[in-house]
């Protein structure tokens, strides 16, 4: 393929870049390197500068005793606490990785359940009026319901075990994905539907080749929002009675007045959220390579 050597093609940078967009790295190298250096590298360092400055101030304020280190443990303390939590299996906290796995499992099951249902329901609602009338009113009702207001009800219904936590995450994750997927399917250019008719596509082919790929950009936006809500729901759900997970560590940290432990758990939540968001962005870059020609410009 021409991806590795687009410069030999008399196509111009735009076409070459879009063509190379199949694999992200090669594309980045291929498209106007000058612009990348000036337009992206520099601001990227600028963007790192202010958080680093914040960390430095935080460290200084804490170490000099301006704010008590028990209230605001310095970053170095948070890191060393994290190290201790990883290396020692204390009776109060267990290990950090154990908590991490418990939380990850919860969010994975809840998210998979919610996202799966959302995709199926949005496809049903998106593809037919009948499906819309059937599904959409219920989803709109669910959407307006305050999610975390359900917590006490869930405790009454399902107790304080795994089920209410997973359900809370599932419902939280389902809604943005449903809304975006539904809108995406309905937003597919009707003229492409006509094209499908002219080309003699069967209904399943139309859905597979035109409708779903057309909705994909919206699905991915929904996916990112859903992941955000899923992590948020996890934090809230883990404030319920838990004996494992990051929320459990936070609860224990509160009881033992160990703010450094709470900060570690919060940092892990943040890192996990950033990681999943980054994963969707990678998928986005690969799956939506066809738009690259426009995005790079």
């Amino acid at each position, binding site marked *: 393929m021409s991806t590795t050597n687009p410069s030999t093609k008399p*196509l111009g940078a735009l*076409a070459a870049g879009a*063509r190379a967009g199949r694999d992200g790295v090669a594309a980045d190298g291929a498209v106007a390197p000058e612009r990348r250096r000036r337009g992206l590298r520099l601001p990227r360092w600028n963007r790192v500068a202010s958080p680093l400055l914040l960390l430095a101030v935080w460290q200084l304020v804490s170490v000099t005793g301006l704010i008590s280190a028990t209230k605001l443990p310095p970053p170095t303390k948070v890191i060393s606490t994290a190290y201790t939590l990883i290396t020692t299996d204390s009776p109060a906290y267990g290990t950090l990785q154990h908590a991490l796995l418990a939380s990850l499992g919860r969010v994975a099951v809840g998210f998979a359940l919610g996202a799966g249902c959302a995709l199926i329901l949005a496809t049903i609602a998106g593809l037919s009026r009948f499906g819309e009338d059937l599904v959409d009113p219920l989803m709109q009702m669910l959407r307006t319901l305050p999610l975390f207001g359900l917590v006490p009800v869930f405790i009454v219904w399902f107790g304080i075990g795994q089920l209410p936590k997973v359900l809370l995450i599932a419902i939280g994750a389902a809604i943005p994905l449903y809304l975006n997927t539904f809108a995406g399917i309905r937003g597919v250019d009707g003229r*492409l539907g006509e094209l499908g008719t002219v*080309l*003699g596509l069967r209904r399943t082919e139309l859905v597979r*080749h*035109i409708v779903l790929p057309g909705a994909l950009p919206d699905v991915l936006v929904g996916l990112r929002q859903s992941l955000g809500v899923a992590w948020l729901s996890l934090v809230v759900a883990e404030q319920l009675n838990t004996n494992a997970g990051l929320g459990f560590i936070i609860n224990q940290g509160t009881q033992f007045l160990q703010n450094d432990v709470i900060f570690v758990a919060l940092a892990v939540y943040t890192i996990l959220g950033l990681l999943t968001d980054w994963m969707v962005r990678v998928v986005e870059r690969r799956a939506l390579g*066809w738009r690259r*020609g426009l995005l790079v410009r």
Partner: protein
Amino acid sequence: MAPRAAGALADSRSAAGSGPTASGAGGPGNVAGPVVSVSGLTRRFGERTVLSSLDLEIEAGEIVALIGRSGSGKSTLLRALAGLDEHPDGEVAIQGTVAMAFQEPRLVPWRRVIDNVTLGLRGADPAGRARQALTEVGLDDHRRAWPLTLSGGEAQRVSLARALVREPSVLLLDEPFGALDALTRIAMHRLLLALWEEHLPAILLVTHDVDEALALADRVLVLGDGRIAHQSAVALPRPRDRDHPDLIALRNRLLSELGVDTKGTQ
């Protein structure tokens, strides 16, 4: 010059275009009788009657241009033939397969050029046939490109390849060159004629451009009052000189037909 003109241009209401293109019977449209026959086609949108008991026949391998003022129902007729209209009254019979190219090329943006051509393509070796079609329009090099990176002319050529790879007996073209610049349009006319000579489909070309109709068609239809108000056969060999006296006479005639229409319906 005058006698030749009379011979070359047969103006009539009933002349079915069995002119120089009757040889098209050797192509994919190898069927007895017309490949398109429409009778009593009527289409209303609410109060407005766009097509009113329209009759039309197109022979195998014939190139027919359809002109008319905007809103005269050109596209409506084409959509009825393409099966895109769910509520037409009247009879539409088509022998063989229909393919269509639109004014905007309508390439599916998330499918590469070749995957646009193979979309919905049945039968053996769709990829090989698609490459053959792309080669014919001079775009085999671009087969892995994304549609959004193509120029207008290139995209329209892909659209033509996608239509022709299906070996249609009838090719419907809805102002396919309307959005292209003049130079590209001339190149596209040549390409279309070359492809037609190779595959010999019957072509129904909707256009608002009288010169385009005269450059390409065996027969030019003028749509007015919801039916074929006028038709002229063009019996000059292609490629045609735009300034040929016969064409000038015919152009004036067609323009006046279009003008008369404007007065007729207010």
